[in-house]
């Protein structure tokens, strides 16, 4: 077993055991913190497919996070106010069912990622970063002025949405649901990295000229990766909204897009568990350092600087060494 696998398994064990301990010790807030970390990890795991494997530095992934959040917010809002979402040409009603909300969040954010990707993947480097940022800002300001759904104030949902067979109001049950989705996503990512698609996408990041010369189109590979990536981040957005029972335009903020990138860099770019390590560290430090000083971001920034300057490959890279090629 490689050291990286060991790090990953330890991380996974921690994600299972710490909340169980919190349940036993009656520390519900720890479970909420862990849920927040897992959901942010899922959002960054989505981004990791585009950024880590595909090399696409998207500074607009909060778009998909926000779309997922609003998919939940809008559907649940209509359900709790007993108003239809739409009457003509077909009647669409709100819902409090998580599976339905997830499906809508996945499809809506995949669609958005496809369209944004179609336009922005024509560019690369700094231009790509700027275009994705611009799309993020567009949706941010759109939702601010979207009076029907609360504008700047967002939407509050009184009760967490339901999942068949579970009581999602119990923190540990909602946590288990989120963790399951994260593990499924990581399993999918692991398979993807080794698959023919992953091989081609990874090569398109390193040597696009070569990929073209063997008859494959890097643009299409990247578009597929970006779409899948956006869909997963969108799913995380729906969960995040359900955790807080609140959505607002801040879910579209570019700072959040930046944080997703930071999670990946801290954990280790293109590492399977990089986003998980990054998100968990971020949430833990936010909690601890935030309790000590309101200016905790300064200390967090120093840590980030240290990792970027001295720890090539993020935390996982520092512990486990260089990424191994898959064989």
């Amino acid at each position, binding site marked *: 077993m490689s050291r990286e696998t060991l790090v990953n398994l330890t991380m996974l064990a921690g994600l299972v055991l710490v909340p169980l301990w919190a349940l036993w010790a009656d520390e519900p807030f720890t479970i909420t913190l862990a849920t927040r970390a897992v959901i942010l990890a899922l959002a960054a795991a989505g981004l990791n497919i585009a950024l880590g494997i595909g090399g696409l530095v998207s500074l607009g992934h909060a778009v998909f996070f926000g779309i997922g959040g609003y998919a939940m917010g809008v559907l649940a809002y209509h359900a709790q106010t007993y108003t239809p979402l739409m009457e003509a040409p077909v009647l669409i009603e709100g819902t409090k069912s998580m599976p339905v909300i997830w499906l809508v969040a996945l499809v809506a954010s995949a669609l958005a990622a496809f369209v944004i990707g179609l336009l922005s993947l024509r560019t690369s480097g700094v231009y790509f970063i700027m275009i994705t940022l611009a799309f993020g800002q567009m949706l941010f300001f759109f939702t601010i002025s979207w009076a029907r759904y609360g504008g700047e104030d967002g939407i509050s949902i009184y009760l967490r949405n339901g999942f068949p067979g579970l009581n999602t109001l119990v923190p540990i049950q909602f946590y288990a649901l989120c963790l399951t989705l994260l593990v499924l996503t990581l399993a999918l990512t692991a398979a993807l990295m080794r698959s023919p698609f992953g091989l081609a996408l990874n*090569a398109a990041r390193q040597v696009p000229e070569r990929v073209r010369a063997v008859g494959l189109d890097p643009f299409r590979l990247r578009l597929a990766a970006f779409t899948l990536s956006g869909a997963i981040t969108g799913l995380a957005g729906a969960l995040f909204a359900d955790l807080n029972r609140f959505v607002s335009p801040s879910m579209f903020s570019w700072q959040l897009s930046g944080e997703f990138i930071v999670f990946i860099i801290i954990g280790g770019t293109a590492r399977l568990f990089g986003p998980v390590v990054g998100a968990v560290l971020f949430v833990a430090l936010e909690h601890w350092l935030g309790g000590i000083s309101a200016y905790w971001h300064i200390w967090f920034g120093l840590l980030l600087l240290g990792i970027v300057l001295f720890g090539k490959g993020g935390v996982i890279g520092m512990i486990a060494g260089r990424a191994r090629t*898959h064989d």
Partner: protein
Amino acid sequence: MTEPVLETRGLSKAFGALKATEDVSVALHPGEIHAIIGPNGAGKSTLIAQICGALVPDAGQVRLMGRDVTRLPVPARARAGLARTFQISQLAMEDTVLQNALLGALGASGRPWRFLRPALGDQSLRERAEAALERVGLAAQAATRTAELSHGQRRQLEVAVALTLAPRAFVMDEPMAGLGAEGSARLTRLLDGLRAEAPILLVEHDMDAVFALADRVSVLVYGRVIASGSVDEIRRDPAVREAYLGDSA
């Protein structure tokens, strides 16, 4: 004469006032190695870019297997049977040697949209990639990270990736670039055997290799073909001697 596998007809390309390619017609026939030589700045790279699809010519045609491919983008030309090697190795350095060859096999298979099963578990891709590595003498390095290969081995891998495409024609951009005498001799032997599979359009600076390999040579100077013929004819051609080889050749 048989129909050429790859052919350019009156190819022209100008950048502003600079005529990088001017009315270039070259043909590549089955079983041959056709070398293109010329001094630096003669327009060899521009010509290759137009043949492979990276640059669109201002005028003229590129034909592959009798079909006009002038407007096809690079990937479509590769799928139509054109395999190229690069002057500066274009390899995925983080990946293993086998993975680089697999990428070629994957391109040839035309089925990159498979997301769940491991690429290394696909027997048909793997056999194709391994056969190509065997052919160029890199079978023992299959599991090595490409970044750890020597320069000469990278040049061999370039050829191996092209081989996985089972192409109708090879276009090789200075495959001997940066090789020592020994590496150059080894690659010369390899290319010599390759022409039976598919003809090679060989752009090369290494005159020993060109004279050892080429069935025909075309000389490019300032974007124009000033001479074309057998190795002996080119050696004797006074215009070529003056423009390119110098008196000592």
